[in-house]
């Protein structure tokens, strides 16, 4: 009998995954078997797991610099700097969101290890998506991420909106996954492989005669639908406002940061590695989605009265900006498209976590009052918190000296590089429209007059764990805004495979 040949495994390369998985299981079991832990211990223990993973990721980043990227486990995963960049991004997001969740769960009387375990689980899915070199593995990661997110969205057991949001997300997300999977099947039919690298090589050699590529194009289209749903690009964005509004606020920040990061990483990987030769086909699609997303997201954000809904629409508009970078990455010889998307993702992840952390504090007990009115007078009550929120909002509007400007600048530069001036101008004008929404929140915090009944409201309390998250996010936003050189270089390194 032939001995079974196992693929050799580069253990160091998957250590971050193992740390997260092991840490999650150990903490989940420990948490289940012991009495409730004291305040914020669950969060901190998960933060430690994230930090451990982060350290190994840094080591890997360095190693790839010396030894070059590798594909491991029989070509299933690619460990290059692109992968590690995304890994670092989602791990940092995991740490920040875990901390931001600590006192939220206590306030809502939901404390326990489950939420954190689901975070870690979702991050593992996100990391698999980023590293996947095979569409089936990619789907695996997508499902690990998505299922964890469905549960997280519904995890506020006493709020019916949370249940509703989870169910909506589940049904629509299931649809999108089906589209994605069908796309994978068609692509397999057209190219004979599910391997992303192999697909790129095959399509590079193959010449399609007229009409021969119908299956391939249908596969690409379905794949794009599935991924566009996950990144919440128009016209696949309809779930976003409802889900973002209904989900527990820290979970919303997690979805907007980790979820977007992973889905865009997968999109970039598939489009740039597997389908660069078909760029002429997918670029127009991405172009249209980008323009629609920036415009529709910005315009609809302005007319909302609920801050979580506003931020949901603004996240659609931000997805449009990132898509501009994706579109640019499809151009031959482009150097800025991909790094600008990655940079935007990293910056936006931190911004959105900061913004939603403040929002979570302002929604007060019950997580229900996320209307614009609940921000009224925040500057009087909590000036520093209001100042931090102002920094996040101005950054999202793309004001210079904040990281948001760096992100927008990179994308605009990538677009201009490819002579997509129209899209650059549309995006910038849309960002002015979006500025109205950020200004509305700022006005509510700083300039609105107090109304009767304001005194009776619960005071906004700032637990120190959330304080740490907000402070860290503000520092990152300002430092990356004033000295963005290192971040830009890192994003560019991620391209160098």
């Amino acid at each position, binding site marked *: 009998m032939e001995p079974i040949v196992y693929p050799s495994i580069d253990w160091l390369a998957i250590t971050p995954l193992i740390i997260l998985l092991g840490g999650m299981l150990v903490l989940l079991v420990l948490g289940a078997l012991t009495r409730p832990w004291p305040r914020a211990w669950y969060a901190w223990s998960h933060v430690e797991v994230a930090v451990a993973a982060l350290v190994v990721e840094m080591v890997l980043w360095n190693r790839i610099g010396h030894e070059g990227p590798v594909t491991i486990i029989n070509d299933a995963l690619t460990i290059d700097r692109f992968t590690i960049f995304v890994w670092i991004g989602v791990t940092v997001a995991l740490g920040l969101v875990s901390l931001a969740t600590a006192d939220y769960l206590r306030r809502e009387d939901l404390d326990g290890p489950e939420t954190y375990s689901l975070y870690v689980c979702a991050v593992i899915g996100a990391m698999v998506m980023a590293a996947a070199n095979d569409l089936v593995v990619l789907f695996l990661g997508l499902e690990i991420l998505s299922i964890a997110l469905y549960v997280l969205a519904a995890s506020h057991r006493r709020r019916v909106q949370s249940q509703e949001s989870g169910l909506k997300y589940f049904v629509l997300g299931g649809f999108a996954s089906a589209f994605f999977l069908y796309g994978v099947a068609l692509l397999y039919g057209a190219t004979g492989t599910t391997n992303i690298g192999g697909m790129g090589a095959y399509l590079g050699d193959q010449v399609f005669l007229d009409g021969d590529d119908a299956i391939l194009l249908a596969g690409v289209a379905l794949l794009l639908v599935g991924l566009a749903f996950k990144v919440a690009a128009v016209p696949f964005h309809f779930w976003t406002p409802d889900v973002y509004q209904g989900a527990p606020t820290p979970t919303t920040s997690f979805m907007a940061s980790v979820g977007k990061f992973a889905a865009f990483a997968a999109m970039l990987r598939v489009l740039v590695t597997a389908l660069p030769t078909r760029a002429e086909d997918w670029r127009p699609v991405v172009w249209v989605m980008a323009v629609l997303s920036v415009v529709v997201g910005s315009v609809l954000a302005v007319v909302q009265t609920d801050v979580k809904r506003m931020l949901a629409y603004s996240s659609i508009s931000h997805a449009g900006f990132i898509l501009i970078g994706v579109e640019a990455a499809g151009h031959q010889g482009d150097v800025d498209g991909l790094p600008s998307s990655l940079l935007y993702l990293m910056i936006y992840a931190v911004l959105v976590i900061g913004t939603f952390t403040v929002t979570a504090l302002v929604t007060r007990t019950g997580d229900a009052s996320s209307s614009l009115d609940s921000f009224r007078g925040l500057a009087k009550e909590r000036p520093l918190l209001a100042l931090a929120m102002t920094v996040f909002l101005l950054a999202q509007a793309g*004001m*210079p000296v904040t990281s948001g400007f760096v992100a927008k*600048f990179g994308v605009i530069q990538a677009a201009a590089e490819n002579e997509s001036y129209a899209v650059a*101008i549309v995006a910038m004008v849309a960002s*002015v429209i979006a*500025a109205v929404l950020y200004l509305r929140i700022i006005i509510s915090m*700083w300039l609105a007059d107090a109304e009767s009944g304001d005194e009776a409201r619960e005071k906004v309390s700032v637990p120190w764990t959330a304080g740490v998250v907000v402070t860290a996010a503000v520092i990152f936003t300002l430092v990356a805004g004033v000295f*963005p050189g290192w971040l830009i270089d890192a994003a560019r390194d991620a391209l160098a495979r």
Partner: protein
Amino acid sequence: MSLLAAGGGETLSFPILTSLVVVPLIGAVLTGIGVRNRPELTKLIALVSSVVTTGLSLWLLASFETGEAGFQFVSQHTWIDAWGTGWHLGVDGISLFLVVLTGVLFPLVIVGCDPHHDEKPYLAWLLLLEAGVMGSFLSLDLVLFFLFFEIVLVPMYFLIGGWGYDQRVYAATKFFLYTMVGSAFMLVGIVTTALLARDATGGITFDVVRIAENADFAASTGRWLFFAFAIAFAVKVPLFPLHTWLPDAHTQAPTAGSVILAGVLLKLGTYGLLRFGVYLFPEAAVWSREIFLTLAVIGILWGAIAATMQTDLKRLVAYSSVAHLGFIVLGTFAFTSEAVGGGVMQMVNHGVSTGALFLLVGMIYERRHTRAISELKGLQKVAPIFAAAFMVVMLSSIGVPGLNGFVGEFLVLIGGFTTARWWVVVAATGVILAALYLLWAYQRVFHGEPDEANSSFRELRLREGMVLLPFIALIVFTGVYPKPMLDRIEPSVKSLLVRVEERTGFTAPTAEHDESHSTTEGEG
């Protein structure tokens, strides 16, 4: 010919330009943190940092090399290499007096205007504003300029929105969004300019001097880029028909906001047109000059007519700003050294005289809690010194010979006559209209017998007088003896026009060649 040839800058090791930006910035941070329970110390910090900035700007004025056309005191450091942008500051004759004006105006505003509440953030925003304005006037790097140009919006937004009058939030938001729309186009323009100039400049750079000296844009490309910049500046100036934010912002802003807005913020637009529009894209500027001349003249007349009809004294001054800035744009696009130099001078003059007018209107509001012209009457009787001060400032705004407003406007008109004759002819009526609306307003407010409400109008106080004194001194000095100012402005303007001439062949007809025998007698 290198514009980088620094005059006094090389002997001066002290980084004076960087300090001009950093000192108010530090002041803003310190003021923002504040001293617990000691508001007077907080105010002292703000005052000291703004006075130090004034000192630095006056030192800059003193050590500025007269007769040197290029940028002086250049300060260049690497910043974001990945983008090709750097910390590049420099000053020349065009920006020198705007920098000095900024330096002088802020401490006067801090002393002269009372925010009434929340003094600490008010002062911090003011100082941040000063840092932003200074940076905008000094930047020689497109990204750095954009950064300062945009950041100015934030403190101004909060100043109008937090300390303004009834419609303050509306006015502040309108101001913010109008300017941001312009900036949106400019950012795309900036990025594209640098990318298209990449081959000529050898690697991507946002350095204005390097782009200007090396890159030569195709005519159509240059025009698009010029318009991307020009929209942002036209909103800021504001040029007709993009001016509608200005009356609201001016009227609703607190006095300090109005003074700064009129004094220096609007000049970002006219300065930007010269420094970035005309300097980088001379061909496009010449090509589109008739559009700008026409819009400028419409602005002059429109502003004047609208000002005549106002019932609110502050709104009247705001509309007069639209008219006055029309003269500056007219001068800029006349492309003769008298007209452009006069325009630059008028930027400073308008800052001084309209800034002072807003201060005076603010003082009237403090006393009477109204700005409606119909409510005010016979103030001359009860407050003669106040009326005298108002009179001097108003005459300067009208452009009466012997005061500063005359010099700038006269130069613009006489310089523009050879190259933009009919526009100048029409614009000259704007001077008459200015006399009409300002004198009429003066007549209604100050003449006659004071009624009961106005009879208790308080006379000018010592502190108010001390704040107004520098304004009046500048008005009279510049009006009587403008030569030192013109000597410093002119070389830079001339070198800019030489550049326009080299690139486009556009020359102003000289007196000998001009068949209509117009004389170019006036050098001020």
